[in-house]
């Protein structure tokens, strides 16, 4: 692609590739300008949006983007070699993260801030009048951006020039900037004095740390080209469990030193403040001790023990660290319960009840102890892992063999997040977690069996969800036709019944249709989904109560001997119920994938005739896939009905079926973690975008994300081993895993 292209006589100027590219980049600038930002077009004046977007001075920013793209494309051959240098990917990710944190995320969600809704960095900056000078300096208008640009530029220079000194300077600047941002933000928070749920500073800190990591990677690697995955594997393999200890250290410092533990009546009390607040109350001595000194001691002890055990790779010390971490976790939870309960009993500043009014600190400490216990557990069990273990540095870099404890560590990170993030989240996000993310993750796990494992495209999956919901509505007596008195059940007891009914429904849909293949099966299932919905609308025999649906479905409850649990209105408790359900389903399905049945599914997905020839009963196996998927969907239906309390046919439209398919494909067909991640990301994204883009543009942005994903990572977020191989050309299975992630796929491949 040379920059000097001669124009032959008689050729139109447009056929010059440079001109075409320039026009394309110009068009890109204008399209982006139209897409990004708030617009106020009306029915009468369509031109308004255009004029606002294109004629204002903001167009200059977008033209700059266009010029950058043009330069990048034109000098691509010269840019490309640098794109494979070590550290370039984390640098890009870190940079983007910081930009997002600065420009989009909330730095405060206090209503005291002018905008009220957004509370971005600039809004936070307007509140800095009485801050300590160090924090005030950070918020001075261009400084955050200057800090970021300097860190990023030094990082980029280090990648290009490859000087270790420069890299370390960049890393130091990035760490300083991140910590400074976090510190300043925490000061703003204590000044405004209301419960803190904003994520801006935290994400900025993470972004800066990623940039620092990129610089470190640049300084430390002798290789010519990037092997980000090899680097990450190396970190995990150096001392199994150590990454968990590192993260726990950060979380623990934040939790014990800066974060809020108790926040009734718009007050943010750190651990020290909380301890002094409760020193004269009737708090139990144990909890008093915990707040006063025991907490710090336990943190320091379990951190040191876990780190030492990981360093020495000593299984017995590992078990010790695991035990100490768990004990500390329990004590921490007891202390959290005590301060909230005592606070409520003394009506301290309007504290409302047990487990209420707690800040982030206590939960961060919980996550810390969980991770430390997990690190100990990994150290204790790393020696006994089955399969080939990566032995040498070269093995690790090439992705050959297993990294001991890596998947356990990742699972523990996710578990810590799933257990202790929700109580820190705002009520809005708690609701999203339960009624969007959680339920759709469960549905995606179920559909993954049908689509991903057995290879049957099911476009009517939501029908089983509807059947589960209506089953619940019937057995709790919320439908016009009542069950006999002895058959009335509490919602949780409906789960086994819904499973059985959905199994039957799955088999009876499957039996006549499974001889169909591919597209034909998809159309039939699509019809089935619509039939169920329309039956619900048409109200046959006054069973479904027509379009009005069922209401007054009671909340779930457990009364078992001395145990009484009532799920009320608050979303948070449903989250933990859902976590238990999803956990059980994952355990069962994980077994299933490795079983004979799992292998039979893999076989019929690849070649039905050959599967038959090796003795797979294809009909039975396909029916089982259908039935198992359907019953998972039914469980989700029970949960949905009893959580929301009312259902109607509009909850079960075709669109939802298609969305679940999209989640599974997006996440990675046939991969359990992939399906879950896909559902989580694609249900989270629209809610996140609510604050960031105009409502009518939301679907467009989501569509853009899906498009980009399918172009650059066609096998999905977390691809299944086989799918990755299918899409990347056949290769040895071990290296297929690495090519699915890095290599020249993505940007590098587009010429």
């Amino acid at each position, binding site marked *: 692609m040379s920059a000097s292209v001669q124009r032959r006589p008689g050729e139109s100027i447009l056929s010059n590739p440079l001109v075409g590219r320039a026009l394309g980049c110009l068009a890109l600038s204008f399209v982006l300008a139209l897409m990004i930002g708030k617009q106020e077009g009306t029915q009468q004046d369509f031109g308004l949006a255009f004029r606002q977007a294109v004629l204002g001075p903001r167009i200059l920013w977008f033209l700059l983007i266009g010029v950058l793209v043009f330069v990048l494309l034109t000098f691509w051959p010269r840019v490309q070699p640098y794109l494979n240098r070590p550290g370039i990917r984390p640098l890009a990710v870190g940079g983007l993260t910081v930009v997002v944190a600065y420009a989009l995320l909330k730095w405060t969600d206090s209503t005291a801030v002018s905008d009220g809704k957004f509370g971005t960095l600039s809004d936070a900056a307007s509140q800095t009048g009485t801050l300590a000078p160090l924090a005030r300096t950070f918020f001075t208008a261009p400084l955050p951006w200057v800090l970021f640009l300097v860190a990023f530029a030094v990082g980029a220079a280090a990648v290009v020039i490859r000087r270790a000194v420069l890299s370390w300077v960049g890393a130091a600047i990035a760490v300083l900037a991140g910590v400074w941002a976090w510190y300043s933000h925490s000061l703003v928070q204590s000044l405004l004095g209301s419960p803190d749920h904003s994520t801006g500073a935290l994400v900025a800190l993470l972004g800066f740390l990623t940039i620092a990591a990129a610089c470190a990677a640049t300084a430390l690697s002798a290789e010519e080209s990037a092997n980000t995955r090899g680097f990450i594997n190396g970190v995990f393999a150096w001392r199994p469990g150590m990454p968990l200890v590192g993260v726990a250290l950060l979380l623990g410092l934040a939790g014990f030193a800066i974060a809020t533990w108790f926040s009734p009546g718009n007050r943010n009390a750190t651990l020290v403040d909380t301890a002094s607040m409760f020193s004269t109350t009737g708090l139990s001595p144990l909890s008093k001790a915990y707040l006063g000194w025991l907490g710090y001691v336990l943190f320091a002890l379990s951190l040191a023990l876990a780190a030492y055990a990981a360093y020495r790779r000593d299984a017995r010390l590992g078990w010790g660290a695991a035990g100490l971490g768990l004990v500390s976790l329990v004590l921490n939870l007891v202390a959290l319960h005590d301060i909230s309960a005592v606070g409520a009993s003394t009506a301290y500043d309007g504290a409302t009840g047990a487990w209420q009014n707690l800040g982030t600190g206590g939960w961060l400490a919980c996550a810390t102890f969980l991770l430390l216990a997990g690190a100990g557990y990994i150290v204790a069990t790393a020696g006994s892992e089955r399969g080939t273990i990566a032995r040498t540095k070269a093995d690790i870099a090439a992705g050959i063999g297993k990294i001991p404890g890596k998947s356990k560590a990742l699972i523990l990170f996710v578990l810590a997040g799933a257990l202790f993030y929700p109580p820190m989240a705002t009520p809005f996000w708690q609701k999203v977690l339960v009624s969007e993310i959680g339920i759709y993750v469960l549905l995606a796990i179920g559909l993954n069996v049908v689509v991903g494992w057995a290879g049957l495209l099911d476009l009517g999956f939501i029908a089983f969800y509807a059947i589960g919901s209506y089953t619940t509505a019937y057995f709790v007596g919320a439908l016009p036709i009542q069950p006999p008195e002895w058959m009335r059940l509490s919602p949780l007891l409906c789960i086994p019944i819904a499973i059985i009914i959905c199994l039957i429904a799955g088999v009876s849909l499957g039996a006549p249709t499974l001889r169909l293949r591919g597209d034909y099966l998809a159309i039939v299932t699509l019809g089935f989904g619509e039939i169920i919905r329309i039956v619900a609308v048409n109200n046959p025999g006054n069973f479904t109560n027509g379009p009005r649906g069922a209401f007054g479905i009671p909340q779930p409850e457990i009364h078992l001997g001395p145990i009484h649990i009532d799920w009320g209105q608050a979303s948070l408790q449903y989250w933990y119920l859902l976590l238990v359900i999803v956990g059980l389903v994952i355990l069962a399905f994980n077994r299933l994938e490795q079983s*004979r049945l799992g*292998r*039979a599914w*893999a*076989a019929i997905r*690849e*070649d039905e*005739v*050959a*599967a*038959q*020839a*090796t*003795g*797979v*009963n*294809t009909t039975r196996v396909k029916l089982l896939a259908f039935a198992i998927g359907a019953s998972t969907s039914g469980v989700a239906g029970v949960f949905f009905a009893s959580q929301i309390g009312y259902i109607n046919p509009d909850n079960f439209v075709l669109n939802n079926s298609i969305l679940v398919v999209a989640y599974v494909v997006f996440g990675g067909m046939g991969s359990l973690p992939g399906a879950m991640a896909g559902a989580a990301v694609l249900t989270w994204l629209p809610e996140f975008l609510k604050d960031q883009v105009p409502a009518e543009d939301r679907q467009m942005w989501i569509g853009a994300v899906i498009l980009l994903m399918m172009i650059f990572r066609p096998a999905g977020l977390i691809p299944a081993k*086989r799918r990755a*191989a*299918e899409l990347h050309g*056949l*290769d*040895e*299975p*071990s290296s*297929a895993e690495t090519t699915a992630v890095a290599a020249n796929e993505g940007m590098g491949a587009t010429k």
Partner: protein
Amino acid sequence: MSLLEVDDIEVRYGAIRALKGVTFDVNEGEVVALLGANGAGKTTTQKTVSGMLRPSLGEIRFDGQRIDGIPAHQLIHLGICHVPEGRRVFPMMTVAENLEMGAFRFKKPDSTIHDRVIELFPRLGERYKQFAGTLSGGEQQMLAIGRALMGKPRLLLLDEPSMGLAPLIIKQIFDIVKEINEQGVTVLLVEQNAAQALALADRGYVLETGEIVLSGTGQELLTDDRIRAAYLGEEIAS
């Protein structure tokens, strides 16, 4: 008594009669070849024997037991293993996993069969951890046969093992089939490559538009003028 008796079977695809009363038998320990041009009904016959198709008339007996109408995944428990046309290995599974699928009928696979298959096809041992889709045509054919052997067949149904392979590889494959036969597995072989098939086969049948038109021992058929004219492409001086 013959191991396999096919008695006057008729198979229909809708209104089309693909087999119009085919009768033949295979004795224990034999290699029997089914020859014929494209569309003669060779593959249909084999699919019917392996249980993938159901005859509309006639009977099939295996070891004296009637088996027509029993689906393929149950027939395999009697020891009838089918290597389908076009190899049909599972491309996204490794060689190891393909072999494992071959032993699917056993709840606990027997490792001695596995070792014997690897001994028979050392190439599969070399490519053990590789995806089957990356193998060459010949290797895939070996894998397909190996996979069928994992099911401990008494009767091995081989559908056109020479399809699309180089002559040298074809010879290799036929040598192995012979070895398998010598180890006591009865083979029903469908082939277009008449010369190679008949050199190997104890007996042969020639199918034409769904009917058996000729039968005899391998040697007899090899020297039969009609065969030489139709399948070996030799000019016959009349």
